[in-house]
């Protein structure tokens, strides 16, 4: 929501997308308490995502996954200087109102939590705080942008330690952007129809060759090489969820992923930081998860 006082305005798209610009090239890490938040900040994280259970545990425990306890979010806010993000259920605008009241810096309307609305996402223009939303393809990304999202991330398949789905989503989004830049003006109508996305946004992409907001990778990133792969594919930075704190030795792995994300094209640096990190999270192959347990299919 835009508020204006004299010549000064808060909650504008520019201010919202501006924070997303500031996060580029940094690593956003899932943390469940202030100790983990401090480890993340010490390792060079550019932001933390505060949540009660990392996606791997949500997947294991089952049941309904909701917004985290405000007390736990506030403890994390008090323990670090970097931005703090938190998740709400898809469509649960009251959870978002609560997070805005806590002064959270970014809200993730996340498929990792159990959806609250099977038809509607949150009207994100209603809020002063920026939102990040997941997308599996360009149409989904543009629908979220048309609802006011300031940042798009791949969904991947969170909590699996397997990045095959994140790669699929990034390739789909970026591949379609490349194709749209080659389309003529008549073909753009067909693209908008096929993507089920606003024509004006499709036309804008044809002109600029890029998404209106930054595009980050998320879902299954567990190693420095995973982070660098996402970056080389065209992601502008990475979220690392279960990959850090479900590994044998989180602090050095976190630091290594931070360095790999900055020096993502430098194989010598990647080789150096990948050494001796201990055991990565075990991970799950996609064919071990049946359709109903997949998070990425949530969102409309």
């Amino acid at each position: 929501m835009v508020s204006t006082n004299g010549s000064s305005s808060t909650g504008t798209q520019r201010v919202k997308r501006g924070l997303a610009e500031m996060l580029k090239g940094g690593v956003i890490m899932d943390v469940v308490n202030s100790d983990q938040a401090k480890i993340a900040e010490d390792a060079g994280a550019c932001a933390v995502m505060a949540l009660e259970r990392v996606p791997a545990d949500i997947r294991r425990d089952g049941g309904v996954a909701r917004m985290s306890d405000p007390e736990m979010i506030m403890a994390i806010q008090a323990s670090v200087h970097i931005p703090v993000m938190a998740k709400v259920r898809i469509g649960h605008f009251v959870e978002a109102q609560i997070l805005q009241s806590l002064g959270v810096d970014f809200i993730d309307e996340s498929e990792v939590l159990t959806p609250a609305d099977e038809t509607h996402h949150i009207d994100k223009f209603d809020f002063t705080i920026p939102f990040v939303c997941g997308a599996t393809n360009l149409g989904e990304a543009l629908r979220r942008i048309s609802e006011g999202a300031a940042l798009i991330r791949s969904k991947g398949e969170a909590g699996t330690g397997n990045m095959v789905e994140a790669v699929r989503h990034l390739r789909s989004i970026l591949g379609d952007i490349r194709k749209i830049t080659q389309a003529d003006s008549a073909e753009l109508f067909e693209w908008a129809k096929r993507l089920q996305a606003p024509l004006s946004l499709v036309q804008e992409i044809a002109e600029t060759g890029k998404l209106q907001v930054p595009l980050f990778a998320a879902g299954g990133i567990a190693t420095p090489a995973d982070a660098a792969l996402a970056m080389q594919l065209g992601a502008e930075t990475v979220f690392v969820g279960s990959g850090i704190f479900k590994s044998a030795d989180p602090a050095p792995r976190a630091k290594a992923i931070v360095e790999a994300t900055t020096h993502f094209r430098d194989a010598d640096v990647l080789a150096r930081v990948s050494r001796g990190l201990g055991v990565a999270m075990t991970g799950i192959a996609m064919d071990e998860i049946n359709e109903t347990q997949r998070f990425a299919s949530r969102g409309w």
Partner: protein
Amino acid sequence: MNMQVGVLALQGAFAAHSECLTSIGVQSVEVRTPEQLSSVDALLMPGGESSTMSQLLESSGLFDPISTRIADGMPVFGTCAGMILLASEILDGRSDQRSFSAIDISVRRNAFGRQVDSFESTINSSVGDFHGVFIRAPRIERVGDGVEVLGSINNEPVLVRQGNVLAASFHPELSNDARLHEYFVSITANRKKV
């Protein structure tokens, strides 16, 4: 003139700065290593997270070479987190956070508040009036004797210069206005002539 402006690309809004430089016909180079640094005539330090950048400056072996280049008079322009990195004193930062002490100002990290308080506003400056975007912005709480205040909002300094060091608490790269980049390039061009 054949000039290369480096954009520190460890983390943050480096891409937006590179686009601004390209829009005014200046060649920009992303700087992540000491070798890349050695090829540039000036360096832009973008916004982002100052504690993250500070750590990456160390692990990338860039801290000391940048320090040396600044001491030799290389023009630098820091915006937001970049300004924090250039300041002589950081308040509310991490205790292990280092800065280049290139400009005599005291800066308080995130003093304008969290993202909910981030704002855009008009800035009156001697370089012109700007539309300033402030994201979890730092505040300049003290300005040393040798420092010139070029711009302010509500009588608070937000754009300062000391010699070849330029610092802003806002984000000129986010407002489709490259006049401050032009100003920085003119500082660099004057130095190259000497």
